[in-house]
């Protein structure tokens, strides 16, 4: 029950809209779907084709992406159609191909707080739009977030895990799943996503992944205290009822927390510089002696 692997040059033809694509290469693969880089034979543009055997979940994905793509938080979706591969029908979405690096590449070393906070802010807005429309993203993880350098924006890809608010989380990654940490259920609600986003911020700042089967949850909370990141702590402990509260707290982080530490250092450098300057003037005054 998987989508067959297609070779370069394979032609995909839409059953309903009759569009034609030529497969270039495979970009990714999941349980019930494969994503290909393909050439739109009419426009000559490169597109990403997600081909799935699961019609209803791909249909949901298409609808969700349409909600977000207007605001450029997800790839533009061009069409949804069916195609026949080796005698069997599959469902596919044609969407914008985004070149960029996934956040996963960034998690080898700590990221500057300013950068991390602005990434998180982008994602918070995207999640806010989803939530407003009654969906929870659920499978938030660095692999699903792309930094599009060309247009300098953050894009969420893969909405296969998104579900209606109130239903159960189907797809998750343990470190971002509150239930794996033993502190909440897998019923999809706003705070499920906020938890994952807070964990992501923590991971970006620390530059390392955690593991719920090896680490204790309270230690992560302690670390958020050390970082002076109140929103992380509140997000992990599910103190926010909606993502906008989290967003506002993140936005106000500019003048607090870690940045305060930098300010202190900056201030002391300034004090030293002024004293040296004064010292030189006094010395000059004494030497010249006027």
């Amino acid at each position, binding site marked *: 029950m998987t989508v067959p692997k297609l070779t370069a040059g394979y032609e995909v033809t839409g059953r309903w809209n009759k569009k034609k694509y030529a497969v270039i290469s495979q970009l990714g693969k999941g349980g*019930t779907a494969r994503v290909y880089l393909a050439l739109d034979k009419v426009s000559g543009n490169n597109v990403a084709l997600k081909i799935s055997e699961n*019609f209803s979940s791909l249909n949901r994905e298409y609808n969700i992406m349409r909600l977000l793509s207007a605001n450029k938080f997800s790839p533009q979706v061009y069409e949804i159609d*069916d195609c026949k591969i080796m005698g069997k029908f599959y469902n596919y979405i044609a969407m914008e191909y985004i070149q960029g690096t996934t956040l996963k590449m960034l998690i080898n070393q700590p990221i500057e707080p300013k950068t991390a906070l602005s990434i998180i802010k982008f994602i918070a807005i995207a999640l806010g739009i989803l939530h407003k429309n009654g969906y929870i993203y659920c499978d938030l993880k660095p692999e699903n977030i792309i930094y599009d350098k060309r247009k300098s924006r953050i894009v969420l890809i893969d909405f296969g895990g998104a579900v209606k608010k109130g239903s*159960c989380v189907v*797809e998750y990654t*343990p470190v971002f799943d509150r239930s*794996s940490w033993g502190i909440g259920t897998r019923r999809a609600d706003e705070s499920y996503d906020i938890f994952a986003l807070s964990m992501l911020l923590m991971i970006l700042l620390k530059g390392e992944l955690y593991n719920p089967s090896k680490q204790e949850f309270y230690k992560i909370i302690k670390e958020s205290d050390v970082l002076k990141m109140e929103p992380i702590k509140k997000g992990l402990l599910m103190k926010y009822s909606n993502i906008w509260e989290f967003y506002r707290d993140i936005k106000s982080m500019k003048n607090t927390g870690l940045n305060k530490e930098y300010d202190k250092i900056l201030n002391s450098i300034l004090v030293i510089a002024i004293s040296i300057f004064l010292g030189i003037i006094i010395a000059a005054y004494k030497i010249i002696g006027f």
Partner: protein
Amino acid sequence: MDNGMINQIILVTDGQSNIGGDPALAAYEAASQGIIVNAIGIIDPSSVGMQEIKDIAKAGNGQYQLVQIEDLASSMVLVTHQSVQATLEQIVSSQLKQLIGSEVGDISPKKRGKVFEFIERLQDEIALKCLILTDTSGSMSNKLQAARESIISLFKSLEIRSGKNLIGVMSFPNGSSGYTKIISPFTDNCSELEDELLKLQPSGNTPTAPALRAAISYFLQTKEDNNGLLEQFVV
């Protein structure tokens, strides 16, 4: 519709079967009885025979995943939901075909929304009977604690659905003599399940095919008076 129930087996193993015949054939027999077989392969440096996992899931009309032991819980949750959804899609599609002569795919993508909403609702409401068939042969011995936790985690995940859930656990082999052992009978009580799971202990060979057959007959033994939707349509 109300007494419809989805029957599925989740096979968890880290190795290749080495006794008792072809497990894919046994999985096919399960599917013919209306029982979906999902298969999860635990990858570790010594693991071989992952092709078998794919063949079992294919023959069993189910889903498969190859994962590290840390991801066993999430993969159990995923394959369960995915296979329920895929099964319902098949059922609804064949019902549509009977009623109006066309499948979901024959309706244009723009007009499918209503059908999908129906499937989504069914997914939440349908009763689910799930037997976890876990390998306890030698190489699994250091993974059994993770397996216990994963089963509980799956249970808690499924509890959120509004439909009924019955979860049972069977292990294979049973010591050096038998093929399978019932660890926990089908139950909807989490703490009962938790207690029973302590019986999960390592031992012996990997008789995957006979274990699958024992799982099928256990399903048939515990069959309630439901005309399982699946049995009618998936062959």
